[in-house]
């Protein structure tokens, strides 16, 4: 499921590319529903508002004819597969439309025994990118409106799927915004770094959208919902907010596949993916490990090896 060499690079992705992907998804989804390969398909349907899209659980070939893929198909649909969230897998083998970043979550969930490969029919998208939060929904995808995470995407061309819709198109020479922002923050004195996060966390309203869209937040009892004893303050105040976001970042270390859904859905624009990126960097440096690149792998924090670095024990 990792990157291959780039094929066609351009400065703008035309709507026709997304239309071609849409057509391929429809044909494949209709077929697997008709021949009984799957009981349902998790994909995207158009929203009421022009240029929007939303997740949908499709069970008939007729509905599958309406599936789309557009730059508004931002959701990571793997969130619908785990038991504690929606548990659609109980219906039988399920088809799922997945971008490269979403496939990293699928791989991670397989590694954590939350889903089985044989229960899925993966309709992967050879993804050129999706809209960022402030995009006009009628425009072609360009560097100006593409999502921040897509600037540094290494998984445009997914591997290991049952079917791939589309063929290798991507924007070239994108500025790595997140990496630059991460470097900027890391270079700040500690007090300023603290002030940066304090300001962001002070806006948190604890709507838990970050947790609820996360494929890896599948705990049936979240530590942060407990009140006997209370581990993290439930009330939306700076101390509890900070504790919550740090607990979450730690819990996702070595697991987060980088879909950045937590950041996308935050109604208060807290740059949560920076925390996840920072944890991913640690894992890369300490264990030369990147989460979700191969299915059914065990992360370094989920296993013990005798030659693990133990220098931190003092």
């Amino acid at each position, binding site marked *: 499921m990792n990157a291959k060499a780039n094929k066609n690079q351009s400065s703008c992705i035309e709507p026709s590319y997304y239309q071609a992907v849409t057509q391929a998804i429809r044909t494949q989804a209709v077929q697997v529903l008709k021949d009984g390969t799957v009981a349902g398909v998790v994909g995207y349907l158009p929203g009421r508002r022009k240029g929007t899209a939303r997740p949908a659980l499709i069970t008939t070939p007729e509905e599958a004819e309406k599936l789309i893929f557009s730059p508004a198909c931002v959701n990571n649909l793997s969130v619908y597969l785990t038991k504690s969230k929606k548990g659609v897998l109980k219906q039988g083998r399920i088809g799922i439309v997945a971008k490269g970043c979403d496939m990293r979550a699928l791989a991670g969930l397989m590694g954590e025994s939350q889903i089985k490969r044989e229960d899925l029919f993966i309709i992967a998208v050879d993804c050129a990118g999706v809209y960022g939060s402030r995009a006009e929904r009628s425009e072609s995808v360009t560097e100006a409106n593409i999502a921040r995470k897509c600037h540094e995407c290494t998984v445009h061309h997914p591997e290991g799927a049952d079917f791939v819709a589309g063929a290798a198109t991507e924007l070239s020479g994108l500025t790595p915004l997140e990496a630059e922002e991460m470097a900027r923050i890391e270079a700040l004195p500690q007090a300023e770094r603290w002030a940066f996060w304090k300001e962001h966390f002070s806006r948190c309203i604890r709507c838990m959208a970050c947790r*609820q869209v996360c494929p890896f937040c599948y705990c049936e009892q979240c530590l942060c919902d407990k009140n006997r004893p209370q581990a993290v303050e439930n009330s939306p105040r700076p101390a509890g907010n900070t504790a919550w976001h740090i607990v979450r970042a730690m819990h996702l270390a070595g697991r987060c596949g980088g879909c950045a859904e937590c950041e996308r859905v935050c109604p208060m624009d807290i740059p949560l993916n920076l925390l996840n990126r920072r944890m991913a960097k640690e894992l890369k440096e300490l264990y030369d490990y990147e989460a979700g690149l191969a299915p059914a792998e065990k992360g370094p924090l989920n296993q013990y090896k005798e030659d693990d670095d133990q220098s931190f024990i003092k």
Partner: protein
Amino acid sequence: MPQIITEQNLRNLIDLLVKESKVVVGPKQADSVVLYQPLAAGSELTLDSLPRRSAKELFFPICENILSYQRLDGKMQVTDVDRSRFPETVLIGAPPCDAASPAILDAVFSWDYNDEFYLERRRKSTIVGIACTQGDDACFCTAVGLAPDTDTGSDLFLTPLKDGSYACKAVTEKGKALVDAHARLFGEAASADAAPFAEQGTEKLDLVKIKKWLEGHFEDPLWEKISDICVGCGSCAFICPACHCFDINDEGSTEQGSRRKHWDACGFSKFTNHASGHNPRDVQNKRYRNRIMHKFKYYDDKFGRTLCTGCGRCVRACPVGIDIAEILSTINAKQD
């Protein structure tokens, strides 16, 4: 000719009110989002976008202490919050979909129990509403009985004019008092040509018909169909001007701490979870049904009002694109 205030004088008014030690709250940029925040000066007022959270937090804060406790000499001392210290507050720049919400919420906060935290803040506040000139395709205030120029809930209502100034209408005595106390900032209008109001993309809804359908369809396949993608966060409820559920938590130690009241949301799986472990709304579609029922049936049954102002925030913010305006249209179109 009606009274007007120029944009500069509106900002000057804020400066004056701040000098008078009033708390002035209005839309203000905070990083990439605009929020209702205390303004230190008139120059901080931002009138070109709808704040990400509604104005309800002025009266019903995200989180507030309702008492504190401390063990002193072996005895527990409980201290109430001194509500007389809540400041006189002027809210400036709320569009109709936000200005209307406190008037809707007054009923529930003064019903079987007078919530003095909410009511004291309401008594001490003046709302300067402003007609809306910039809706988008998520807005649906006209569908739920409001309009971009509705002055419901405002004490003083401003209508943007083409020349950049604002026509002023004192809707209540509080609004009149605000104008009278700062009369020199207000002038006579040369013309009263209003700037075009915001346009909306949704048809008008028959709220009576929708309520009637809800009465007969507590059990209906629609609930599962519309909420099968809901991931159960509280985003829609928290940014809503009308949602008002709250939770109360004691936080601290056995020696000292606080009792806190903070926003709750019917989307959460723990919402209405009983101490026994039983939850009458055990699956997401029952919780989503509660959201629609509460807004368009229960609140109307009890208080004769619809618990939605059509601001469209939930439509814009829902992580999975659930669109309440679309759901209402679907119900509106049903024959039985």
